[in-house]
């Protein structure tokens, strides 16, 4: 297949499908178009990935030069956001967008043009695996959205369906994300970046309640701040390095012997843009607020893909600031975010908020790895990006399905879910275990991260302190959630199965299977996509591959052996345990111990309390909100993180 066709299918086709879907009123037509489009995109993405790294020139689009088209689209987009800002009456948004417009115009017309024509699309292993993740995981989430949104609109008693708008925006978003990770030109990346901001704003406010509109506005201004930082970075780079090609920028930066503060400043701005996009502290409130959106939005944008855009940008730009103090500050900042949001997650009983904080935490871990800036840490960062997207997307979808059935997203209300929604409960439990247990991919990524941190040369001790502490906190909130889901007072539950929407169950099962299989083939994934991308970066930019110990990584023969050894033994053990558990006879059943006063009434277990009154059992998790609660520690976290940012940017000015 021609490379340009494949790229078209991944980048441009979604926008076209989005337009088509916007005008598709009929539900059944939509249910035909969406899976078909997703299948085409997924096939294209996988084929693209299978072909390996590539470069693609795009000379002209519809007769006009590509550069012109993109510049016009950039400006139109900013004007549109300005209009939104005006409609919302937000001077903050309007001001920042105006500044962006001015900056962009300055960039286009005042600063000298590019020295060398920029290759449009340059993809290495990182881009390719991200395209696959975006298209496949994103596609499954979109299919999930078909069933989910039907029920969602039923619950809201909408007379006119808003699904055309919903799916149109989702598809535009998918195209924008694919474009973002594939393109080489920074101003094109900026266009896609701002499109994702816009999509996020429109999707968070989709339900049009007051709360969602307020949260959408908050998301918008924080992301627009990031966009402003992006434009500033582009301006500085064009001025100092004379090019907007990512490749050339990195080449020039890595060939410099001394990186003085002036030349690092744009990268600090890139960091700022990435931190807002990835909702790092102190910007985490927009992501937590975005949880009011319908679940496919949370799954797709706010865990699997959009927030990864920030980390992707930093990972791309990492060689430029390798070995500098700025890099160390970024690493410390990421590690601090990791531990702070893990602590916050412990105090939450709202499942979506737990997932949101956990997402931010993992993004912080990725940024910490990026900041450490060695080959080993880059591999770790890439691995975490990949596996986190898969697992977190799955978990969000599960929570959405659960919420629609039981009407609540509180973990305490999910107690005993195995008796009501066994398939979803099992998938959720598997999802939780893929997030935190070996031999799954996320754990492999965390393992690589800690190994990379231990080998880092700068500021290792505080970073490893934060990561060790945060990692312990994650076990807390995952383990208790998993236990709550399978809680039961009967020996073997014989639940009545509900009737979930087929698209929802299909998506859940597929992504669950994908998560497990993907973890199983993790050495293959690492060898095909991650290692070539990292070693390619090091080769192209003449960097020293310090900390890169080939035999110790998981792509060597030793690595394969350990992973498969573990998988085999753990798998056998789990299979044996499952078999034994199923064979326990009903005669072995006993009620829990309540000091001898156990009583069962209407299928609910409890005890006979004072005055011979039946008391149903009431158990709950320790949320410890008086120690770890949002109200207690958010303020301190925000102050410390803002201090970090001030040091980061101010230190360079």
């Amino acid at each position, binding site marked *: 297949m021609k490379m340009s066709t494949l790229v078209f299918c991944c980048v441009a086709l979604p926008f076209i499908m989005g337009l088509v879907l916007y005008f598709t009123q009929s539900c059944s037509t939509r249910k035909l178009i969406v899976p078909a489009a997703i299948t085409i995109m997924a096939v294209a993405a996988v084929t693209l990935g299978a072909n390996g790294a590539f470069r693609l020139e795009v000379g002209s689009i519809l007769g006009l030069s590509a550069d012109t088209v993109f510049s016009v689209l950039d400006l139109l987009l900013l004007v549109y956001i300005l209009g939104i800002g005006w409609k919302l009456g937000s001077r903050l948004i309007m001001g920042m967008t105006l500044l962006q417009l001015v900056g962009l115009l300055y960039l286009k017309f005042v600063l000298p043009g590019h020295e060398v024509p920029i290759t449009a699309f340059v993809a290495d292993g990182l881009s390719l695996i991200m395209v696959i993740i975006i298209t496949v995981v994103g596609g499954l989430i979109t299919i999930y959205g078909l069933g989910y949104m039907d029920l969602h609109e039923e619950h809201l008693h909408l007379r006119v369906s808003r699904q055309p708008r919903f799916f149109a925006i989702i598809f535009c978003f998918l195209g924008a994300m694919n474009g973002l990770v594939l393109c080489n030109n920074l101003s094109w990346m900026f266009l896609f970046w701002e499109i994702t901001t816009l999509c996020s704003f429109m999707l968070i406010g989709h339900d049009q309640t007051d709360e969602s509109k307020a949260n959408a506005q908050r998301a918008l201004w924080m992301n627009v701040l990031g966009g402003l930082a992006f434009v500033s970075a582009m301006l500085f780079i064009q001025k100092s390095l004379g090019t907007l090609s990512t490749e050339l920028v990195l080449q020039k930066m890595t060939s410099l012997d001394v990186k003085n503060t002036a030349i690092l400043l744009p990268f600090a701005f890139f960091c700022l843009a990435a931190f807002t996009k990835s909702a790092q502290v102190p910007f985490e409130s927009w992501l937590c607020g975005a949880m009011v959106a319908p679940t496919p939005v949370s799954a797709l944008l706010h865990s699997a893909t959009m927030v990864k855009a920030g980390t992707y940008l930093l990972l791309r730009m990492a060689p430029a600031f390798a070995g500098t103090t700025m890099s160390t500050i970024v690493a410390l900042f990421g590690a601090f975010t990791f531990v702070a949001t893990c602590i916050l997650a412990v105090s939450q009983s709202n499942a979506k908020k737990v997932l949101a904080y956990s997402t931010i935490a993992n993004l912080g871990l990725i940024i910490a790895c990026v900041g450490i800036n060695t080959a080993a840490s880059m591999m770790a960062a890439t691995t975490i990006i990949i596996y986190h997207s898969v697992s977190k997307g799955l978990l969000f979808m599960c929570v959405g399905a659960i919420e629609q059935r039981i009407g609540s997203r509180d973990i305490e209300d999910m107690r*005993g879910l*195995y008796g009501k929604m066994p398939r979803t409960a099992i998938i959720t439990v598997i999802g939780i275990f893929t997030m*935190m*247990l*070996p031999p799954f991919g996320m754990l492999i990524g*965390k*393992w690589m991260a*800690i*190994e990379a*941190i*231990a080998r880092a040369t700068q500021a*290792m*001790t505080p970073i*490893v*302190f934060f*990561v*060790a502490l945060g*990692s*312990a906190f994650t*076990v*807390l909130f*995952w*383990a*208790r959630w*998993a*236990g*709550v889901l*399978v*809680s*039961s*007072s*009967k*020996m*073997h539950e014989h639940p009545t199965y509900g009737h979930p929407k087929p698209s929802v169950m299909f998506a859940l099962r597929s992504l669950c299977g994908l998560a497990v299989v993907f973890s199983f083939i993790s050495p293959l994934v690492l060898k095909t996509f991650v290692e070539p991308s990292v070693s390619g970066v090091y080769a192209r930019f003449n960097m020293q591959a310090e900390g890169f110990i080939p035999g110790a990584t998981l792509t060597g023969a030793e690595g394969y052996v*350990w992973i498969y050894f*573990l998988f085999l*033994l*753990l798998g056998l*053990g*789990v299979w*044996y*345990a*499952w078999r*034994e*558990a*199923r064979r*326990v006879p009903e005669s*072995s*059943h*006993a009620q*829990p*111990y*309540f000091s001898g006063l156990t009583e069962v009434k209407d299928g609910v*277990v409890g005890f006979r309390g004072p005055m011979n009154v039946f008391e149903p*059992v009431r*158990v*709950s*998790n*320790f949320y410890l909100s008086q*120690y770890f609660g949002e109200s207690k520690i958010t303020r301190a976290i925000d102050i410390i993180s803002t201090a970090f940012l001030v040091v980061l940017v101010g230190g360079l000015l």
Partner: protein
Amino acid sequence: MLTIFSAIGGLILSPLVGGLLTGFDRRITARLQSRIGPPLLQPFYDILKLLGKQPLVTNAWLVFSAYVTLISSALSLLLFFMGGDLLLLFFVLTVGAVFQVVGAVCVPSPYSNVGAQRELLLMLAYEPILILVFVGFAMCTGSFSIAAVFQLDQPLLLKMPLLFLALGYALTIKLRKSPFDIAASHHGHQELVRGVQTEYSGPYLALIEIAHWLDLVLILGLCAMFWHTSVVGMAVLVGASLFTEILIDNITARLTWQWMVQKKSLLLGMGLALVNLLWLYVA
């Protein structure tokens, strides 16, 4: 090939060693309390008796969790004997601990649930310390692999004394000894009836107990790594650690979790670890 056989051999011997060490533990505790104490083989009698009891459990997930706990502990010990990666070992150990908690949370019993929450807080207290100790190992030997420790010619204790003390905290918590036995104290002591282990009964309690022995052997093995140059040194270190644990158990009272996490275990243990790491880093 030889290594895997010797590792499996070590794994088979470990419950016996663990049980014997537990027997010593109870005997010495009794002597410290002016009692005679049970025979040395008592833990084996306990396990055999438990294996022969009628199983009485609330739900099948408990059974599943008990088996997975044992399998994970066994697997991490196997990794240890094969000289594998310390971090991987740690993560496999976490599987076991997590499943013990999941098994306790999945029963709607207040004792079990509160015990499980406290067990999670205990894990919060010792996990960061273990990771920092392993990072210390990596700093001294240049790799996270256990096999690399044996290539040093000086005992690690000289370079990492404070980390050894921090490991002592982890050991106290893992052995369920006072003052950190808030989740499920060991034999003869009750806390919340039996805390996280309340609803495990009969053969499944036996599985949990054997997993506990394997963990004991693992952590004592890690302690022994600090003086790998001589077998006598290893024995001395292990013996001294165990005796100190028993002594501390007998002279302290149980702490609340706030004390444990804030003052005694987490911050103090991590502080010690950090100081040592910084010292290693600078040196």
